[in-house]
Structure formats: C-alpha cells, structure tokens
C-alpha cells in the first residue's frame, strides 16, 4: 500500500514537472509582459515589481480591440460557413458512400499540402479584381476553403461511427426529414460538430500567412497586430511579450474552457 502511494506520488511529480516544462515558455511570456524593459533582459528572476507600462504602451500604438474583434469575426465566421458546407457533404459521404467517396476525401486532404506562398500572387490578383482585399469577408472565404478538407474529414469519421440502427429505426417510425435531423441526428452528432468547429476556430485564429498578406488596415486580425511588434528597435522584450500575451489570451482561454468538449470529438475516427 505504501509502496503504491509512493509510486503514485512519483508519477504525479513527474507529470507535473513535465507539464511545467512544456508550459514554461507561455508562463514566462506572460510574466515578461509585466516587467519593465530593463528587468525583462536582466537575469531571469521571479521576483520583480509588476507593471502595466508595456500593456499601456502597446495599446497606445495599436488598438488591440479592433484587431481582436477582426480575429473573432473571421475565425468564427469561417468556421460556421465551413460547417454549413461540410455537414451535408460529410453526412452523405458517411451514410451513402459511393466508390468515389474515399478518393474524394483523400483528394480534399491533399489540397491542404500546397504551400500557400506558391499561389499568393494569383490569389492577390483575384482578390484585387473582386474587391476582397482587406475585407473580413475575403479572409472568411479563404479560411473556409483552407479548413474545409479537415472539417469534412473530421465530420465524416465522426458520422461514420454513429450507430446507424437508431436512424433506421427512426425512419421506420415515420419520422420526417426535419424530425430525423432535429431529434436524432443533432443530439448524436453535436459533440463531433462542436469539436470540429473548435479546431477550425483555433486553426483560423492562428493562421498568419493569408491574414498578413491579404489585409492592410480594416480587416487585419491579431496575427498582423503581432507583426507590428516583432523585432522593432531598442528594448522590446516586455512590449513584445505583452502584445503576444494579448494576442493569444482569448484563444488560450477558449481552448482551456472547451478542451473537454474538444477531446470528445477530436478523434478523427481514431477511437473505436
């Protein structure tokens, strides 16, 4: 008994040490944001008098809330759009598979492997001619398309594992299409849809190539905000940390709050 307690303690200790090491860069960044610039580059120390100076200065230079709002609109907008397009597709692929289904899925995934830099100029010209440059709508469209393959695939694997018999039974009982969707499908698939959506939000929030290149002032999200604080002149560690903390805080908290939900559906069909 004692032996097992000790073992448990060791396991807990090891897990906590690893957790701390992995989390440390984020912790240190948050901490540095509250230091003065001179303290930020002095030898690392946990003891310092915290200050909000960096945050104030950062906010004076660029309005955080405007960028953050753009990030929210773009990542949630594209996620909703992607789900609306992907749910019917994944549903039909899962329940009415044809010979081409697997091929289509694989092809969709392979579209993700094209490095975006290679097509920047064509897309830029396209956006210029359609007036989509520096609009939230433009980024919503790009992100929707960018995440669609993953979203379709995740939903497909989730739908495929659903107990089919229930649906069949419901249909026998004469449930209408609407009833079938609302009473049977929705409750069953909600975890999968939710976690797919969460992943799509995270991927859109963190995307830094299209968001930098297709926006200027109106639609620029937080990734562009960071680009105005990376490697400026003089001492910048504290300001950079403050800006970084603000840029990742919403999505980090969002991730923490929803991680249980995410785990439930984030199986990509990996769990039987």
């Amino acid at each position: 008994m004692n032996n097992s307690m000790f073992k448990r303690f060791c396991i807990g200790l090891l897990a906590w040490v690893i957790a701390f090491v992995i989390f440390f860069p984020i912790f240190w960044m948050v901490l540095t944001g509250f230091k003065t610039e001179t303290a930020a580059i002095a030898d690392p120390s946990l003891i310092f008098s915290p200050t909000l100076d960096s945050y104030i200065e950062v906010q004076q230079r660029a309005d955080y809330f405007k960028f953050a709002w753009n990030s929210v609109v773009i990542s949630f907008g594209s996620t909703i759009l992607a789900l609306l397009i992907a749910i019917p597709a994944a549903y039909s692929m899962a329940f009415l598979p044809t010979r081409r289904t697997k091929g289509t899925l694989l092809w969709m995934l392979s579209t993700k492997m094209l490095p975006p830099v290679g097509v920047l100029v064509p897309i830029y010209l396209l956006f210029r001619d359609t007036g989509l440059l520096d609009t939230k709508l433009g980024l919503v469209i790009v992100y929707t398309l960018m995440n669609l393959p993953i979203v379709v695939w995740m939903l497909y694997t989730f739908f495929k594992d659903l107990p089919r018999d229930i649906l069949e039974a419901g249909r026998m009982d004469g449930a209408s299409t609407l009833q079938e969707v609302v009473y049977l499908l929705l409750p069953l698939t909600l975890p999968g849809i939710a976690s797919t959506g969460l992943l799509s939000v995270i991927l859109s929030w963190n995307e830094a190539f299209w968001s930098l290149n297709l926006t200027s002032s109106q639609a620029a999200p937080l990734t562009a905000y960071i680009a105005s604080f990376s490697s400026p002149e003089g001492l910048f560690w504290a300001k950079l940390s403050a800006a970084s903390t603000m840029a990742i805080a919403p999505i980090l908290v969002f991730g923490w709050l929803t991680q249980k939900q995410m785990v439930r559906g984030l199986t990509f069909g990996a769990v039987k």
Partner: protein
Amino acid sequence: MNKPRTAGRTVGGLRPLALQGPAVTLLFLWMIVPLAMTIWFSLQRYNLLMPGMTGFAGLENYQYLFTDPALWTAMLNTLLLVGWVLVITVVGGTLLAVLFQQEFFGRGIARVLVISPFFVMPTVSALVWKNLMMHPANGVLAWVASLFGAEPVDWFSSLPMTSIVIIVAWQWLPFALLILLTAMQSLDEDQVEAARMDGAGPLSVFFFITLPHLKRAISVVIMIEMIFLLTVFAEIFVTTSGGPGLATTNLAYLIYIRALLDFDVGMASAGGVVAIVLANIVAIFLVRMVAKNLED
C-alpha cells in the same frame, strides 16, 4: 463492414450529389483555379518587378528550378523537419499519454497546461522561443546553462535545424497527446487487468496491449501533422530566415524566397507545381496507408 449502397438512395430526399456538391465544387474551384493559374504562370516568363518581360517560357522555369542547388537541400530539409517532428511528437505523445492517463493530484490542471502550446499562434511561439528562451545572451536557456557553468548554446547559429525542430515539436506535441489521450481512454481495462494477472509487466502491457490499441490514433496523428508540417513557414521566417546558409530552408521557404524576394512568379509557380507533385506522392504513399488503417 457496410454493404455498398446504391447511388439512388437518398438522405431526407436529397441525393449525395446535392449534399456533397457545395463542398466538392468549392474545394474543386479552390484547388483548380490556383492550380490552373500556377501551372499557367509556371510556363510563363513573369516577374512582377520586370513588367516588360513577359511571354511564353516553355519549361525554362522548371529547368532553372531543377538546376538550383538549393532545391535539393530544401527537399532534404523538408523531410528532415517533418521526420524529426513526427518522431518526437509521436513517441513523446505516446509516453505522455500513458503518463497523463494515470491518476495523480491535479491531473485536470496538469493536462490543460500540457496541451496549451497547441493554442499558441506559430508566429508568437517562434518569437517567444527566439527572444525569451533561446536568445544567447538574455534567454532562459542561456541562463540555465550558466547556472551549471556551461557555455550558453547559440541555438540558431550552431544548431539551426534542431532549434526549428524543437519549436515545431513543442507546438505539435500537445496535439498528439490530445488525440492519443482520447484514444487511451477507450482502452479496455479488463484486458489490461487480465494481462497483469497472467504476469505481464508494465512494459509488455505497453507493447502488446496499449501500443496496438493506439495504432489507429497514431496513424491519424501522423497524417494530420504531415499536412501541416510539409508547409511549415512562420517558425522559419521569424527565427532563422532559412539560414545560416541553407540550413533551415525548406520547400515552402524556398518558394517564398523565389516568390516574394525575387517576385519571380514564373519560377515560384514552378516551385508550387513541384510542391504539389511532392505532396501528392506523399499523399499516395502515406495517406493511403494510414487511411487503410482507418477503414478496417
């Protein structure tokens, strides 16, 4: 196994075509429009900085690309980066999944801490590693080294690829952990108990029960990570700019140099076409293998 259904079946009166239509059409456009433009441009002399110099170039762009000594280095670097990060995240993720599956004090919070890096945008994580962790003078790692009286490592100049691998692996390890941990939860405890009864040690339980159980999940991790790792860009752009020399130039970064420093759209497009071909080769070999794993 499901019996293949006939195409005449419907869901709520809608045929598969109508349901899949929007997604497939949009993706098709998204793929085909840039692809067609890329192929078209790859056969043109088209440099944004030289408006006068246009016209059909034939395979000239490809010829230049394939005789570029940087191309092979970049391909090798791409494979190295993908390979190492996959090894680290899959092996590390599996071990951590086993560890974080155990009961211990504050497990929920510890798990949340461990998965956090996955939510951090790549630009920020590269900046934090570069300026706060790996900086040779003010970085935490340099300070730790000095505590032990060791010479601080100048990460990005002496171990450039290792540094990039560390940063990228730090971001993707939590993802692997997340998936593997989920898969772990469906592990049949009775089976493990039975094996223990038969005198199996923790190692043989891991190798003969846990690992086979995680096979599908590991395949999924490899596949998803592969998609993202082939196009790693922000981490390199922020830290080493592909250097020193070509030490950390991967294919995505090389195309960036051609596309946005030379503004040679023709050459960049040729690079894009090569990347697509490469991605599809990978897709055929790997994704099929993985996908097969998933089907049974």
